[in-house]
């Protein structure tokens, strides 16, 4: 395991009271290519700007080689940024742009020349030194921006959507270039993008974000094959997502049938979601098929066809090189390995009573919440995400509830636990290690308690979440 170079701990950022980055934790190892992936407005650029020193965290810390750098000015951090709009100095030529940081350091002229020429060579722009930056193409400007940042010889290079202004072909080319450059200079890259394909092909590690929070951290293969929830699955590529139940290990039930799979059942729940990638589905004869359906549309994509097949309860997306026509009845089959099991989005739903406006009572304790009593009904449901519990020491007098950990598993840099409060089972997440038998005190912030009247509200909410746009 290589050395940790950057540690981000409990990092939060608010702009005018709006939380943009919410309690983020992650590590970056030396030499790693880490991508922050998410839609615009998910807080990924803000995290990058906090690492660069352009924004001050509202709370939390950033460590570089174990040293806190929160208060260091941008020019005091061994970190350089490749800006989205390149920010090349328009009054300087290519050479002087790249030499900027070296001139600031007052290196001797000859050394500056050597270094600039070396980095011009790294980005394949030898001989362009005397060119005006405005005379360069977008891709060339991009290369100059990278060379300029590298010339300062940073420990970490931050790249803020560096390819988003380039056209598709150039973007592909620059992706290859970036990977090559990173290998050549062996510097840690932290890369921000909303393009999942870019993230998958470039990264050693991907951090998937939504609304200021991390959803999943993992290698591209982990994220693609084992997405933690339907949101990640959907974002990271085309997928068929199916509600399913799992009563025992290695067997999952969906669409009224039982299928073999390679995953064990989750100890705390039977309800899961299944992801099957469209390229993992094959056409087969009707008698050998696991599912049958009717082709309803066909699109030629170049390498393969993309079909929509009606299988009764839902539409399936299938990618295949075999030609079929709309109306054809087809058998679909997939191997157990192609069935990826995810937890359905986990939430604690607790029967509660509204005591008065903004005070709700559940599990024997009163909590502040943001809900006014409507009409006569005081029976409500309190919805709390596992990550939103505030975990306190069991001796802490301010704790409102006490829970006993039943089960704990480490997943994506956090512990997912099942715990009991009296007879009631809850799910909670912890950054610190918890093991079965541990007793913890619990509290929860008023704005992390969502009050709903019945479970139907929850379904509506989920649908709204799913319809959120990923694009810019």
């Amino acid at each position: 395991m290589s050395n940790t170079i950057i540690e981000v701990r409990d990092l939060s950022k608010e702009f005018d009271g709006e939380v943009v980055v919410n309690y983020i934790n992650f590590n970056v190892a030396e030499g790693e290519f880490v991508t922050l992936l998410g839609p615009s407005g998910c807080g990924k650029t803000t995290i990058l700007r906090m690492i660069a020193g352009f924004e001050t965290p509202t709370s939390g810390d950033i460590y570089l080689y174990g040293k806190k750098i929160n208060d260091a000015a941008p020019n005091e951090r061994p970190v350089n940024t490749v800006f989205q709009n390149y920010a090349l100095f328009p009054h300087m030529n290519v050479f002087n742009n790249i030499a900027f940081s070296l001139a600031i350091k007052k290196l001797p002229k000859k050394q500056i020349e050597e270094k600039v020429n070396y980095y011009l060579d790294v980005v394949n722009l030898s001989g362009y030194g005397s060119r005006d930056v405005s005379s360069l193409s977008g891709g060339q400007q991009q290369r100059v921006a990278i060379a300029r940042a590298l010339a300062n010889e940073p420990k970490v290079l931050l790249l803020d959507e560096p390819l988003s202004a380039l056209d598709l072909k150039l973007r592909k080319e620059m992706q290859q270039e970036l990977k090559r450059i990173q290998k050549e200079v062996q510097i840690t890259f932290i890369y921000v993008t909303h393009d999942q394909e870019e993230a998958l092909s470039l990264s050693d590690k991907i951090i998937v974000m939504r609304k200021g929070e991390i959803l999943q951290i993992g290698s591209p293969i982990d994220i693609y094959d084992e997405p933690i929830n339907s949101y990640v699955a959907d974002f990271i590529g085309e997928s068929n997502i199916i509600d399913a139940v799992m009563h025992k290990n290695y067997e999952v039930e969906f669409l009224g049938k039982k299928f073999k799979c390679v995953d064990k059942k989750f100890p705390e729940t039977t309800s899961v979601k299944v992801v099957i990638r469209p390229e993992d589905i094959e056409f087969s004869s009707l008698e050998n098929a696991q599912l049958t359906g009717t082709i309803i549309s066909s699109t030629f994509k170049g390498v393969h066809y993309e079909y929509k097949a009606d299988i009764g309860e839902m539409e399936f997306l299938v990618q295949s090189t075999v030609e079929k026509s709309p109306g054809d009845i087809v058998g679909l089959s997939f191997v157990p390995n192609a069935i990826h099991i995810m937890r359905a989005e986990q939430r604690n739903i607790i029967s509660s009573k509204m005591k008065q406006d903004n005070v709700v009572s559940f599990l024997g304790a009163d909590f502040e919440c943001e809900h006014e009593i409507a009409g006569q009904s005081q029976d409500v449901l309190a919805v709390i995400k596992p990550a939103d519990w505030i975990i306190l020491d069991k001796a802490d007098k301010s704790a409102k509830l006490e829970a006993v950990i039943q089960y704990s598993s480490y997943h994506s840099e956090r512990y997912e636990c099942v715990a009991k409060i009296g007879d009631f089972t809850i799910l909670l997440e912890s950054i610190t290690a918890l093991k079965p038998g541990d007793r913890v005190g619990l509290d929860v912030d008023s704005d992390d308690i969502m009050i709903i009247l019945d479970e139907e509200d929850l379904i509506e909410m989920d649908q709204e979440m799913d319809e959120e746009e990923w694009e810019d």
Partner: protein
Amino acid sequence: MSKKVKALALPYGLWMIAFTLAPMALMAIYAMRSSQGQAWTFKNFANFFSPLYMKVLWESVYIAIITTAISLAIGYPAAYFISVLPRKQRDIFLVLSILPMWMNFLLRTYSWMNILGRNGLINKMLSAIGIGPVSILYTRGAVYLGMLYNFLPFMIYPIYAVLIKISPSYLEAAKDLGASSWSAFWKITMPLSMPGVITGISMVFMPAVSTFVIPELLEGGHTMYIGNLIQHQFLQKGDWNFGSAISMILMAFVLLSMMVLNKFDTSGSKEDALW
């Protein structure tokens, strides 16, 4: 360009012919005519290059340079300060900086006479604390004060307009690459704001070098500047030919100095420059 657009530009075209080109042509003709006969001559131009008139030109250039330098020294920091303010305050300061412009130029200058005079506001205040009266009006200092008051907004505004357009990402990039705030200013902001500085200098230097009302009113007309000289030739001496020649020389001088000035544009973009 479509015919319609051309037609829309016609009124200004006529305006320019009637009030810029035609008068200039007339002036050129007058300048090359002798005041005695009808002969064509360059004597009017040659007459100007005598020590007496050279001193007049020098005095004018001298006060224009001093005025421009002081307005730059005051105007650049002011423009920079305004450009970094939050939006609302920025608007307030911008309006304040051009507020004097809302009043007529002559009125403004006359009111300075009242403020600076022997029985003016300043001397009254000074005598209240037992000093003075001090002569302020009818000195060179009063001329500088009047010129600054009138021309400073012409320095602040173009510099501000350029500063506000410089992308903050350039400064972020500079700091990211190790520059302190101070060196980021000198290496990035300053060179990129040169078009504004050059426009500002032109806008102050040009009227300052040819001014005649301000010295007339605030200095009592006891030093001859080139503006006063031209006025004098036309209105007192009635020598329109010599007056025209001096005007032509002044114009050539201003044009030349602007061309030299534009050599100092370090921003890399020549599009915004006057020429």
